[in-house]
């Protein structure tokens, strides 16, 4: 398991007046479930993009095994080998006409042999329960199937850390449960899963650790019970204060 740490990251989008990330520091623990919470525009997706080297911080450092990421071809490939990111809309991630082909892209880019890649595709497909879909065209899949194929495309690279950016938001409860089962399998392999979500109840039930972003800052980082008891977090997430442990939104 590699160590990935974010050290005092600052980022501002070109043309924006304010920073999208402000002084964010965090180290990924091994084999944990992490829920990343925050309102729309709080900086969750920007943080996710930094973890994978898709955005380069204006100030601060992303460290891999203690070494700063240099943002050259080699170091980015190394970072992406260890940190995989899955986005919310699978349609914007699947590029190939066939499922097996799509999943094979990542491991081939890592320079693995065709035999190894075939193995990786099978393992990732088994992990995501999509073996019967391997020969299907990607455009003929349902939304939930596409999400699992997008997950398999990242898992075929065998990352130590998987970051899922709101992937469960548009799924029905059954499919969401299937995705959570995949996450459990990863955690059982001592991998870390970070899920950016708006589902507070899911975060409370599922996560070992909860991070809360607000206006580009990481305002809370701790165990769910501890984070959801914090009055600042409760007010930010508009939680009902009648029960301190509750994650039900406040009625307006």
């Amino acid at each position: 398991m590699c160590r990935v740490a974010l050290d005092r990251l600052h980022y501002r989008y070109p043309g924006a007046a304010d920073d999208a990330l402000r002084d964010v520091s965090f180290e990924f623990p091994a084999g944990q479930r992490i829920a990343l919470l925050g309102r729309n525009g709080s900086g969750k997706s920007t943080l996710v993009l930094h973890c994978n080297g898709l955005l380069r911080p204006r100030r601060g450092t992303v460290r891999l095994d203690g070494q700063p990421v240099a943002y050259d071809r080699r170091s980015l490939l190394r970072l992406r080998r260890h940190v995989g990111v899955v986005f919310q809309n699978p349609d914007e991630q699947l590029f190939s006409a066939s499922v097996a082909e799509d999943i094979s892209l990542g491991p081939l880019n890592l320079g693995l042999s065709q035999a190894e890649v075939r193995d990786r595709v099978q393992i990732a497909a088994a992990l995501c329960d999509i073996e019967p879909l391997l020969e299907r065209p990607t455009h003929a899949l349902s939304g939930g199937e596409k999400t699992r194929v997008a997950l398999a495309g990242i898992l075929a690279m065998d990352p130590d850390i998987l970051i899922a950016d709101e992937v469960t938001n548009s799924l029905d409860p059954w499919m969401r449960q299937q995705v959570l089962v995949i996450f459990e399998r990863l955690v059982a392999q001592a991998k870390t899963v970070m899920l950016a979500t708006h589902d507070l109840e899911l975060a409370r039930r599922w996560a070992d650790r909860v991070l809360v972003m607000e206006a580009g800052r990481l305002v809370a980082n701790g165990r769910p019970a501890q984070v959801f008891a914090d009055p600042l977090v409760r007010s930010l997430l508009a939680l009902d204060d009648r029960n301190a442990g509750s994650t039900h939104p406040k009625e307006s």
Partner: protein
Amino acid sequence: MRLIDTYAYANRLRRFDPALKVGLTLWVILLCLTLNRPLVSAATLAWMLALGMVWAGLPARVVLKLLFVEGMFLLLGVLGIIVTAGLEPPVGPTLQIGPLWLAVSPEAVGTALALVGRSLGCAAALNLLALTTPLVDLITLGRRLHVPELLLDLMTLTYRFIFTLLECLERMRLAQEARLGYATPHRALSSAAWIAANLLTETLRRSRQLQLALECRGWEGRLRVLPGEYVCPRHTGVIALLVTGTLIAAWSWR
């Protein structure tokens, strides 16, 4: 397009090497064009329909429907050959519309029918290929034939985006329809224009997102994927020989 794609993935020849299918198609088209006789065209048409329905196991209605559409298109195209228009009264059956004389000569009808026959024979051969070979297999074949990678990547992405944008278009249309966007011809025109404009920006946004997703997977400008695994059954050669023999026999038959 969805119909063709669906059958391309669900037929008995799906796992056959695309080189075999492309080779057979090109060979049949070459024979149909060079052995220029109506009987050859008819034999080609019959063979391709039989191969599609029996060998590939495609539903007859799908194969015939596709050919019917192409046939109608071809018939419209040869109208100009069948009907001659002029200001002078021509020889043969004529029809006068104002100062204009329209005529149909038996030679022109023969030429048009021969042309339709040849075209339909070739179209049937191409239909067999299209209905039994997904584009992904053709792209794999392109890689084996050393077609430039850039062209193949463009084909892959274009193909993928056609379906993505069709879904997006349908969602936008439904959203407009729910707000009476197509209640009057004027509104319909305006709504369609909005869709066209939004689809362009949506395409740009999606292509940016796709680029991010590809970079996550270590993409460095080339879409490397695993080649497909195919079979080369020997009976394909026998079928090719039978088709060739039949077409040559049809050409030499007096």
